[in-house]
């Protein structure tokens, strides 16, 4: 019991003065990507991350996912970054993450169902429950009828739904999403935003969500993390408090629009210092 309560108190993700740099290959000046990032992400929170292009949003996400290793990628880190009190690599080994990339990255030789089932094959989990779980996530993201289709036969929006389903099938405690809906049209994106919120209400994963869209950032977030240009520091963390569960009406509400405007102002302030 004591262990349990201790576990309960550990935040999902904890950055403490976390810095990250790529040293120059010739041993010269290094490229500082992140500097002194401090942020505590609670369990079940949705944090959206915005910032100028090339500011290190993706690097931040990859660092959390344990995709950057000091040996292979030659990154130098300072400060600390813990996931449930563990190193990112240990958390990755314990399969706490699911990562969705900017592209859907569906394997062209597998149909939708086989793509969504890939993580289960990798984890070698028991076969009988797998089919049921795949069915469940496929219908959850609304592509239950397209499970036999090949990736090349479905639209970009459908591909991103499959991408999301493949992440959800891993039953991750932390969902790391790198501009997953960036290449979709606005209507499709909004629809998928609401789907994601609905799924979040059911599964309650902790979500880090990188985006370029201010409106998407506000709609999804419990908190919006605004990064400065490189080397990125936390410029501001804005808590999003909307009166109730977001719906389509939220998008035209004054609270929502006010928050979008406020974030835009923070951004504009960033630009004026250039």
């Amino acid at each position, binding site marked *: 019991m004591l262990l349990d309560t201790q576990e309960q108190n550990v935040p999902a993700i904890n950055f403490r003065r976390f810095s990250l740099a790529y040293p120059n290959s010739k041993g010269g000046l290094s490229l500082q990507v992140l500097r002194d990032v401090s942020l505590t992400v609670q369990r079940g929170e949705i944090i959206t991350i915005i910032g100028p292009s090339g500011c290190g949003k993706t690097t931040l996400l990859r660092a959390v996912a344990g995709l950057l290793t000091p040996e292979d990628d030659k990154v130098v880190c300072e400060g600390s970054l813990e996931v449930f009190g563990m190193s990112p690599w240990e958390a*990755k080994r314990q*399969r706490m993450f699911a*990562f969705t*990339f900017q592209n859907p990255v569906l*394997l*062209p030789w597998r149909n939708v169902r086989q793509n969504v089932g*890939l*993580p289960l094959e*990798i984890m070698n989990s028991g076969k009988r429950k797998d089919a049921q779980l795949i069915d469940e996530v496929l219908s959850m993201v609304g592509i239950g009828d397209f499970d036999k289709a090949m990736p090349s036969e479905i639209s970009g929006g459908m591909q991103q739904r499959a991408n999301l389903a493949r992440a959800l099938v891993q039953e991750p405690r932390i969902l790391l999403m790198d501009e997953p809906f960036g290449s979709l049209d606005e209507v499709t994106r909004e629809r998928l935003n609401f789907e994601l919120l609905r799924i979040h209400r059911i599964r309650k994963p902790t979500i880090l969500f990188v985006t370029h869209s201010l409106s998407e950032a506000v709609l999804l977030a419990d908190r919006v993390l605004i990064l400065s240009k490189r080397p990125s520091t936390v410029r501001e963390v804005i808590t999003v408090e909307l009166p109730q569960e977001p719906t389509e009406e939220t998008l035209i509400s004054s609270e929502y629009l006010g928050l979008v405007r406020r974030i835009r102002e923070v951004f504009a302030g960033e630009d004026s210092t250039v």
Partner: protein
Amino acid sequence: MRRIVPAVIFMICIVILWESVVHVFTIPEYLLPAPSAILPRLLSMNAGLLTHTGYTAFESALGFILGSVFGILLAMLFVHSRTLELGIYPYAIALKTVPIVAIAPLLIVWFGNGILPKVIVAAVISFFPVVVNTTKGLRNIDAEAFDLFDSMSATKSQVFFKLRVPSALPYLFAALRISSTLAVIGAIVGEFSGADRGLGFFIMISSYRLETVDMFVGILASSILGILFFYGIAILEKFIVPWEQRLSADMA
């Protein structure tokens, strides 16, 4: 079907032109036989020709399989060890610049007049496209796909079999299509250097006897064999790699 119509019409035009040129300029048969002389011969001596063709087909197929298997194994080794690739790859490529025609007589000296030297020539010639393209295919993986497997903590062998191998298949088949026709060329070159059977032998003998019609028959049979090999692989490809647009092979 409609796509092959222009090719068929073109072919008919060439044959008509050929036939008329031979008759109009009364070209002797030992220099350029008319299609009307070649075709009956191709059809009439089917038993003997078929034996020669079968012999060459067997050598080509065996050499093709050996060369391809060896090429695939070497490519897998290269992907496994960068050091091995850096050490061996340049020589594998350098070996390709040695004309295959020059190696064939040496192989006859080493391995005699039988089937083995022909199989080796066919294997050597089909080996190169396979090793080059398979290595390229196994390496040419989308970086995000790698990250995807990494994020799922996939093992090295899972990455190999679930990602590298399927990604490489289109490249491999592009190479196999080329190699299958090269193997026929290799076997015939081997037969030129010393043989008592096969299409290469048949063409040589006909040449010594100045039986030009038979030479054309032999050449025609060789081409048909190559085309059959090519389409055999192409059909196999459709079943094994249905998801991919055809890639064209790197000849290295």
